[in-house]
């Protein structure tokens, strides 16, 4: 059985103006659909990556996986337990300790007034667990020194802080870690260190990662399976080799074409048309149709369903 199973996951946000403005300006309520009908499974001890540009809903999905947001409709099941609808408190409690999260900004996600020791052991201490020597052990596992436990976050660089965040995520011995852009605030050489650390820990602890990123190269390096999101919809899902070498969806093709390449000296890339549409009024049919070079009439009226083509899942009428 898959560790995570996501079914028809949808989340809308109310972005209406205040009541009085709506009355005076005669506006309707406005809803932004951040995530729309997303389905995927994540197998245990693999890395599943969600990629997409800003506004594609990748962070919203991540937050729903850990329970920071509740889905508007659809289900997230982790180890067969649906956190939103489960009533057995013991079961929820048990599952929650299996899930941890690493955030993008290591400057904002550590409390500046707490010592590193307290930060790292909090997930255990909050449940009344034994924390003796735990912070020191974890600090060494993430490549810092046990002596760092008594310091404050401001004494560390960005890469070191991200290591502290990883140590904190590991302290409750989770099975699943949701990593929301874990390296996008870091320099390339520090990114390499953190990504290598994440790979090592995954092997040592048998972790499952959901990796959220906008960086295709990071995703290609880390992931076992990649889901590409566009405007809150999953458009393509495949293993890295298939996604990069045998791309099915026109949006993924556009994204790969646009990404800068190390060997692209003086390359005149085929430029993407237009920009991401307004998520409050998404296009009808396939969300990508206004920018798609292949779009036909059907794409404007009918929303494509996820189809299996070989090992790839793709939501496009024309893909084959």
């Amino acid at each position, binding site marked *: 059985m898959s560790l995570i199973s996501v079914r028809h996951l949808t989340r809308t946000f109310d972005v209406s103006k205040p009541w009085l403005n709506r009355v005076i300006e005669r506006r309707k309520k406005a809803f932004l659909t951040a995530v729309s009908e997303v389905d995927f499974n994540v197998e245990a001890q693999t890395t599943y990556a969600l990629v997409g540009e800003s506004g594609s809903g990748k962070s919203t999905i991540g937050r729903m996986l850990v329970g920071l947001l509740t889905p508007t409709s659809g289900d997230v099941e982790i180890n067969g337990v649906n956190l939103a609808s489960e009533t057995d408190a013991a079961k929820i409690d048990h599952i929650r300790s299996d899930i941890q999260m690493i955030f993008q900004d290591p400057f904002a996600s550590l409390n500046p007034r707490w010592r590193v020791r307290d930060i790292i052991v909090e997930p255990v201490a909050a449940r009344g667990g034994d924390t003796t020597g735990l912070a020191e052990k974890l600090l060494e596992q993430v490549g810092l020194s046990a002596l760092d436990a008594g310091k404050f976050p401001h004494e560390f660089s960005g890469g070191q802080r991200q290591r502290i965040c990883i140590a904190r995520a590991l302290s409750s011995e989770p099975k699943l870690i949701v990593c929301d852009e874990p390296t996008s605030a870091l320099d390339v050489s520090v990114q390499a260190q953190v990504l*290598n650390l994440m790979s090592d820990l995954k092997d040592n602890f048998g972790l499952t990662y959901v990796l959220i990123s*906008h960086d295709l190269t990071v995703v290609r390096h880390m992931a076992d399976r990649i889901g590409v999101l566009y405007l809150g919809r999953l458009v393509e899902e495949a293993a890295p080799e298939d996604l990069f070498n045998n791309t099915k969806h026109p949006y993924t093709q556009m994204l790969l074409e*646009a*990404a*800068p390449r190390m060997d692209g*000296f003086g390359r005149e*890339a085929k*430029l993407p048309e237009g920009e991401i549409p307004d998520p409050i009024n998404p296009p009808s049919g396939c969300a990508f149709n206004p920018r798609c070079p292949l779009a036909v009439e059907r794409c404007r009226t009918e929303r494509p369903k996820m189809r299996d083509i070989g090992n790839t899942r793709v939501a496009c009428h024309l893909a084959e």
Partner: protein
Amino acid sequence: MSDPVLSIRNLCVEIPTRAGIVRPVDSVSYDIAAGEILGVVGESGAGKSMAGNAVIGLLNPPARIASGEIWLNGKRIDTLKGDAMRRLCGKHIGMVFQDPLTSLNPLLSIGDQLTETMLTHLDISREDARKRAIAALEEVGIPGAAERIDSYPHEFSGGMRQRVVIALALCAEPSLVIADEPTTALDVSVQAQIIALLKRLCRNRGTAVMLITHDMGVIAEAADRVAVMYAGRLAELGSVRDVLTAPRHPYTHGLMASTPLASAGQPRLHQIEGAMPRLTAIPEGCPFNPRCERAADKCRQAPAPRIVDGQAACWFPRVAEEAS
């Protein structure tokens, strides 16, 4: 080669602090020719933006140019002060910053901002300036420029805003554009559009560009030559193809190898151990020596050699066959 548009000679920037004087930019020299794009890469704290700000006179006190010379079109500009500097730089240097929202005035329409810039630096009438503003917006690819010229910055998306900033930087027809991380805040697909735009406009007009970025991929696609900076010093300078495919400096090599792109198919990424030194504690000799696998005694004692184009500031540079 004709005379360079911008020529920096042994530029040093100093900041006096309580812990002593630190040098975020130390003995940096490079030239940019007309129509050429020089990529300046480095990690955060490498001094790449500081060098750019020094050129345009935007150093925040107490940071100051301690020594060195900056020449623009054969005129020395680092000694200019106040008004003279402002007039010269406003006309001859355009600037594109990372965040398009903070580099536009939210209270003025984009048309006002463009015409104001042109009226200050060019000898033209208000009507002409408006016409040229519309033409400039069309050139950077803003649809319906004539209708949108009276819009305010918040009415544009991030990518469109960066286009406006580029129009603004180019409207006084400068001979040098300094683009400091112009696409870092943008999505991949928009980034490709902006880079292509910058490339096209500068080629067509023969504008020299200093493209400051941390993204090696952007450098590879846009730049003609590249300057790699480390701890305030130039590590390597050369044509983009040479530096990226056969890096001579161990730092450049490590940087290239640690990008996930370069190590496709390998289970682990190449790692440069340690981190960039703090400015208050730059090691003796070559600043990279504690992290360098090739470091010898000489690297710990003698400062790395001064370099010209096509060289690396290293006592034991990698040779071509080793790099490939």
